[in-house]
């Protein structure tokens, strides 16, 4: 009589009892994993404070959406679907794998059967196939996987090893089950049902006629391979791009909730005490918050951030992907698994260059794309704060910063000329009065520097004032008292100057007694909405216009035929504040207006080149972002680019000239367009 094949726990491997062998493997594997994790967590405890334990229900909801629901994955369809399948497979296999591991050390536990067994058979199969496809993709490499020489070497071999290990895990699992079922069949024992068409099922059928001793060896060998591969993978993942398997749950749960905002310089330190803080911003690795360190661990190196990054697209020395990868490599080097931590080196000058840190326009394309919700803008701003604190500010930015300090605008223009743009409005058309003791109004039009002083952008100011007037809005301006909103002063790392500008404007706004604020500048809009505290609610003029048109307060003449319009989403209106529909509603309400969408629109909008201080920064780049953008508009078949931000206007009009598209393409602000078409 042939003996039934023995379960791994009762088998003998080279004179060692299976249970003892697997007990040792389990304990060694778990102890190694615990040691490695402790070492990986160590820098997080040395990182800065970062309160991420609030609003648990919101966080849970986002966990279900972005982690369990893999919400952002289909944005890259092929890779996304593969990932969704293997993620689902992994989730299914958690229980299965638990039971399988337990088999090594205990009397045969009852592996879950029935429907779950069938699903896990398919899950093993799907994960195995996905790994095969993923390995091929790593070899064929979509363009975004490439590693430019300046960012180091590609980790292709490592990535393939990790994928292959998972494939081996799945194969071993399937062989184990297939061999077991085949031997049961040969011995006329009750056969564990295997899902038709699954990998274990295929293997069982292939092994049906194999000799029983061979089956027994295959069965036990597969189990050993599975066990070793499992623990090797568990302990190897924290050294590379698959670490996100362990960390993603936490990264997504603790992800930043409030878009459009910038983290405080130090959590828990009130503004008034910032002067006492010795060093501002991120200079060394330990200046990052624990969550930002966790982000570094969680990056899966998928390259979507950099694929979307406009700075990367025009050849600036910045790639969000490598901002993370370089920090992770740094952390692995300086907080090693074996040996003691050695930290304290300045990051800029070592792994980062100054130009890299200043190259970001804070457009947020990377953050809108990352499936793991890794944050970039706060890190860039923190690194800039560190540079500013050390006096390392590019010469091109020092003059505008100084002018912001002394004159309240980056151009160094006189304060008393801040409301001069109003003078060109015909008296009967509208009056934009300065709010003071004599003049009070319900609504404040916050103009901000570029619209107030730049000859071209003043037209946007006048159009906005005319629209507010036409819609019977009781409004006024702060005039010479207004200072720059400081939006980009903050994002360029000069927190102290930003606070001075914010405090000044807050005081002036409160004194004016207004109940609402309207602005035509998305940067001011974002600042007033997210950076300022205790100011009245703020609206962008596009939102105001959409409402006024719906209420019939503004009526428009038809546009001339022959023009094709496209709307360019300003980053601080769209991505950072979700205002996508109001400007489009305004455009679609213009009689006869033909509108097309660009390939990159809404949350994938392509930054024009950046606003605020970004206008003054002189980057190293192959071409202008704006040039790429006007080319996208032309590709879409448009000959008029409509935007809703004065900085976009600067960049678009420059880009049209640089691209040699004068006469073929024009740019107009949404407010200018509406004012041009108004019947009243």
């Amino acid at each position: 009589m042939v003996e039934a094949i023995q379960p791994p726990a009762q088998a003998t491997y080279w004179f060692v009892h299976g249970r003892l062998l697997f007990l040792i493997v389990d304990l060694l594997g778990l102890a190694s994993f615990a040691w490695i994790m402790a070492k990986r967590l160590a820098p997080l405890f040395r990182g800065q404070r970062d309160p991420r334990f609030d609003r648990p229900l919101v966080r849970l909801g986002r966990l279900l959406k972005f982690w369990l629901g893999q919400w952002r994955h289909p944005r890259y369809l092929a890779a996304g679907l593969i990932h969704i399948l293997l993620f689902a497979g992994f989730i299914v296999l958690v229980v299965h794998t638990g039971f399988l591991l337990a088999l090594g050390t205990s009397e045969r536990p009852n592996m879950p059967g029935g429907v779950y067994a069938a699903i896990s058979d398919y899950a093993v199969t799907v994960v195995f196939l996905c790994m095969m496809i993923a390995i091929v993709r790593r070899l064929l490499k979509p363009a975004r996987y490439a590693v430019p020489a300046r960012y180091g070497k590609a980790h292709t071999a490592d990535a393939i090893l990790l994928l292959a290990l998972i494939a081996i895990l799945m194969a071993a699992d399937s062989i184990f089950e297939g061999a077991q079922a085949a031997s049961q069949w040969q011995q006329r024992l009750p056969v564990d049902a295997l899902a038709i068409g699954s990998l274990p099922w295929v293997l069982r059928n292939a092994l049906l006629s194999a000799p029983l001793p061979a089956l027994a060896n295959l069965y036990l060998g597969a189990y050993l391979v599975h066990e070793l591969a499992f623990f090797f993978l568990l302990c190897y993942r924290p050294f590379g791009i698959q670490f996100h398997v362990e960390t993603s749950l936490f990264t997504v749960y603790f992800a930043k909730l409030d878009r459009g905002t910038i983290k405080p310089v130090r959590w828990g330190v009130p503004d008034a005490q910032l002067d006492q803080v010795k060093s501002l911003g991120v200079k060394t690795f330990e200046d990052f918050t624990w969550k930002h360190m966790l982000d570094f661990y969680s990056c899966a190196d998928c390259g979507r951030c950099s694929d979307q990054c406009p700075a990367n697209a025009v050849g600036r020395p910045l790639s969000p992907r490598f901002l993370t990868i370089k920090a992770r490599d740094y952390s692995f080097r300086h907080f090693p698994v074996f040996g003691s931590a050695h930290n304290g080196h300045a990051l800029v000058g070592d792994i980062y260059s100054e130009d890299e840190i200043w190259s970001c326009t804070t457009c947020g394309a990377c953050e809108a794309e990352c499936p793991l919700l890794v944050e970039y803008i706060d890190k860039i701003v923190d690194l800039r704060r560190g540079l500013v604190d050390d006096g390392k500010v590019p010469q091109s930015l020092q003059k505008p910063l100084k002018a912001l300090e002394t004159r309240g605008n980056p151009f160094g223009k006189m304060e008393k000329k801040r409301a001069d743009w109003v003078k060109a409005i015909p008296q009967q058309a509208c009056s934009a009065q300065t709010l003071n003791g004599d003049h009070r109004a319900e609504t404040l039009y916050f103009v901000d520097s570029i619209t107030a002083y730049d000859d071209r952008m003043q037209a946007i100011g006048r159009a906005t004032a005319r629209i507010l007037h036409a819609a019977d809005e009781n409004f006024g301006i702060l005039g010479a008292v207004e200072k720059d909103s400081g939006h980009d002063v903050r994002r360029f790392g000069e927190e102290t100057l930003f606070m001075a500008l914010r405090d000044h404007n807050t005081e002036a706004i409160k004194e004016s007694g207004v109940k609402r604020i309207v602005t035509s500048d998305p940067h001011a809009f974002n600042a007033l909405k997210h950076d300022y505290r205790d100011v009245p609610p703020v609206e962008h003029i596009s939102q105001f216009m959409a409402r006024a048109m719906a209420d019939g307060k503004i009526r428009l003449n038809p546009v001339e035929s022959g023009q094709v319009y496209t709307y360019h989403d300003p980053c601080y209106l769209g991505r950072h504040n979700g205002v996508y529909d109001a400007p489009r509603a305004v455009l679609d309400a213009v009689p006869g207006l033909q509108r097309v969408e660009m390939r990159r629109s809404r949350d994938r909008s392509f930054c024009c080149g950046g606003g605020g201080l970004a206008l003054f920064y002189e980057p190293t780049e192959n071409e202008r972002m704006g040039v790429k953008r006007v080319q996208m508009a032309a590709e879409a078949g448009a000959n008029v680019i409509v935007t809703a931000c004065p900085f976009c206007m600067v960049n678009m009009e420059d880009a049209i000239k640089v691209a040699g598209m004068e006469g073929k393409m024009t740019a107009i602000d949404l407010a200018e367009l509406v004012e041009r078409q108004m019947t009243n």
Partner: protein
Amino acid sequence: MEILVCAKRVPDTSENEIELNGDGDIDRDELVYSVNEADNYAVEEALEIVERTGGTVTVVTVGGDEDEEILRREMAMGARQAVLLSDDAFNGSDGRGIAAILAAFVKKGHYELILTGVQADDGAGQVGGMLAAMLDCPFASLVTSIEVLGGGKLKISREIEGGNKEINEIDLPCVLSIQTGINEPRYVGMRGIRQVASVPIPTLGKADLGVNGYAGEAAARVKRMDYFVPPAGKGAEMLTGSQDEVIAKLIDLLKAKGGLQ
């Protein structure tokens, strides 16, 4: 090395519109001031020398209480100490008078290297040279790089016509006037200035310094009579025609004005 930098507070040319009032003087009510640009480069250069070879940087200015703000800014940049030379008797000094006040201060210390800006935005570029003469020190102007050689010598380069450079060796102690562009001055924000807001700045007067008779209005031999704002010119001349025509006209114009040979 103990380095002294002489700095001046001037109206910031990039942030002001110069207008004359009825008295023929500049309307100063709404001017904003900053440290003279070339002096700021001099302070940065001094700080970089000290970072490389050790020592201290002291910044000095001649003026009134309002001039303290530039001293604070330079201290926020990294200068160890600042001194204000202020006395009613200094008012109305000409360049020679200012140089005499500074020379009196220098003699009270042990400075090996004295830097000034190449000239002040509202000045005449004369103080550095006269200061060197009064101290009987070697002087070099328009300095665009400094290298400490040791043995009490510096290797410096000076800007000469056409962007060319002349390399010199100069003995310490000496006075150098620093050209803009010699380095990239570090940024100083409000935070830095606030952090040195309570550091005391000693003020020295005529009696403390023992200034000779050159200081003050009475001793001045150069006196400002008036300011003159040139009338705006015709503006740009726009060349019209095809691209080739425009190029031909431009070349003719450049030749006519001596820009091309």
